[in-house]
Each structure stands twice: as C-alpha cells, then as structure tokens.
C-alpha cells in the first residue's frame, strides 16, 4: 500500500478539517449557552423550593434563549450535513446561489473572528451547474481565505454569481490590495489541482480588486 497522500485528497481533507473545527467551536458555544440557561433554571428552582419568588419574565426570556440556541445548532448541523453530502457524487447539479449561501455560513466564524464581512448578491433565478460540489466549496473557501489578506480597509468581500454562455462565473470583489505577486503566491499546487479537477479558471484584475472564477456549466465540458 502506498504511503503517499493524494494531493487533491489532502487539500480536501484540510478544508474539511478546518470547517469541522470551526463548526465544533460554534456548537460548543451554543451548548455553553444552553448549559448556563439550564443551570440558571436549576438555580431558581432550588431557590423557589426554599420559598424565594421566581421572576417569571426572566424564565420566559430564558426559554426564548434556549429555543434560539436549538435553532442555531440545528442550522449549524444542517450546514455540516450539506457539506458532508457534497462528497456523495463526483458530479452533481448545484445552484450556485445555494452553494455560496452555504459557504458564507460555513466560513462565518472564521471571517467574523478576523473582522471581515462576506456577502453575496444572489441572482433571482437559480444558476444551475453540474460540478463536483465539494471541491468547488473547497476552492471558494481557499479564495475567501486569500481574499481576507488582500481586502481594502472596509474588510468587506462580495461574491457575485452570474450565469454565462459556458456555465457561470463568480466575481469576488473588494480585493483592493491584491497584487500580481500575491495572486501568483495564492496559486499553490493545491489550488491548481482543484482548478484543474473542476475545469475552472481564475482571472485576477488587480486594477479593480476583483477575481473572477469561471465555472463550466457541466464538469464534463471544460471552459475553453
């Protein structure tokens, strides 16, 4: 058996590990809120048994907090599930709007902690392409990570998906500090391998701080 790790697989594992770590952190935070809320309920129950008055409004607000945390955790786990299932098939139909929405959610902890805001201008209609969703998610994660090093002072990154004749494109804007050297450094072996596997191309435009990711409409029909 070979002890060599397939570089594309390694890139995917690195991405999956980072997302898992971020998600587990988020779940821990949510559990911490639920833990304190349940603990507070226990505290006031013990106090009530000793004859102390219960603040019903506080209990009502606590119930709301707990419900909100359950919804939050459910959202986190749902996104994790979507990411996990994006490995099910080597090529499947995806709506780029939905995929970008997922990536904003999955990267939120990382981007917010670093003081960045990532948004997407979703189109009114679905932008359906056939691709390997997991590696496209991996690529977008890497682009966002790179983008955070080269944004302007506003620390805002916008993603704009558009349908094109050959498939679709995603424009990443707000990259005011991008240089040719920085872009070339970003094109690591992992990035090149993912681009090749997805038949995608990246086009930088340093003058307006933009990177365009060209994605084929069907992974079996590469962009020319």
């Amino acid at each position, binding site marked *: 058996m070979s002890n060599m790790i397939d570089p594309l697989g390694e890139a995917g594992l690195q991405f999956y590990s980072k997302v898992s*770590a971020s998600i*587990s*952190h*988020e*779940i*821990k*935070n949510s*559990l*911490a*809120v*639920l*833990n*304190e*809320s349940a*603990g*507070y309920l226990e*505290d006031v129950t013990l*106090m009530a048994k000793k004859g102390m008055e219960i603040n019903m409004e506080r209990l009502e607000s*606590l119930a709301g*907090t707990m419900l*909100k*945390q359950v919804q939050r955790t459910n959202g986190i786990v749902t996104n994790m599930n979507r990411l996990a299932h994006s490995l099910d098939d080597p090529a499947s139909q995806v709506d780029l709007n939905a995929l970008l929405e997922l990536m904003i959610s999955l990267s939120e902890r990382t981007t*917010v*902690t*670093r*003081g960045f805001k990532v948004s997407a201008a979703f189109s009114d209609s679905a932008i359906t392409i056939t691709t390997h969703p997991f590696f496209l998610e991996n690529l977008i994660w890497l682009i966002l990570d790179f983008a955070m090093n080269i944004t302007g002072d506003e620390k805002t990154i916008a993603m704009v998906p558009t349908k094109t004749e050959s498939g679709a494109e995603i424009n990443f804007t707000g990259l005011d500090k991008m240089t040719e050297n920085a872009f070339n450094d970003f094109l690591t072996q992992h990035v090149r391998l993912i681009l090749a596997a997805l038949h995608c191309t990246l086009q930088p435009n340093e003058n307006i701080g933009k990177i365009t990711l060209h994605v084929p409409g069907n992974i079996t029909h590469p962009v020319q």
Partner: protein
Amino acid sequence: MRLLLVDDEKEFVSTLAERLSLRDIEADWVTSAKEAEKIIEKKHYDLVLLDVKMPQVGGRELKKIIEKKIPGIKTIYLTGHGSEEDYQAGSAEAEYYLMKPININDLIKKIHDALKK
C-alpha cells in the same frame, strides 16, 4: 472579589454572571475587548474571565492590554476551541484554560484557586 467576564456570546456571559451573583460572586460582563477596555478604566477587578476567540480582538490579545492597566490581575481563559496548540499556549499564559461548556462549581473552585496563586 470582583470579576469581569468577557465573551461575545451575550446570552452565555450574562447568564453566567447572573449565576455567579446568585452565589455571592460579583461579576460584571461585556461582549467585546473594546467594552472591556472601557470598563476596567472605571472599576477594579481581581480576575478576568476571557473568551479566547472573539471578533477583532481575542482573549489572548486582550489579556496583554488588561495586564498593562492592572498588573498582576488573574486570568482564566474560556473557549469552545479545542486545538492542542491553543491549549498549550493558553495554559502557559493564564491561571487556567477552560473548555466550554463549564460546570459552575468547577469554575468557582478555579476562580478561588486562581486568586490564591
């Protein structure tokens, strides 16, 4: 004894402060490093409980800022982040490095132990 709790999870930090006060431990709370810097100008604290991962300025950076203003202040880190590297670094810097969720009785014991160090 007066504590300052700093965590960007408002519902966590406010409820924890409330539970500590039910146990006669005076605890103020804020949700950002910026607010923490303001409040320590006005009040004295014996110990700060800092979330390691917060937007803009995290707990480890905030600890350095607070120590310049209150030399010798005791610190406990709190985090949901479980990397071994963070644990090693955080444990070396603070009195304790605790993982969320926490047991309040364990936390209170750690607070007392930290203040004795």
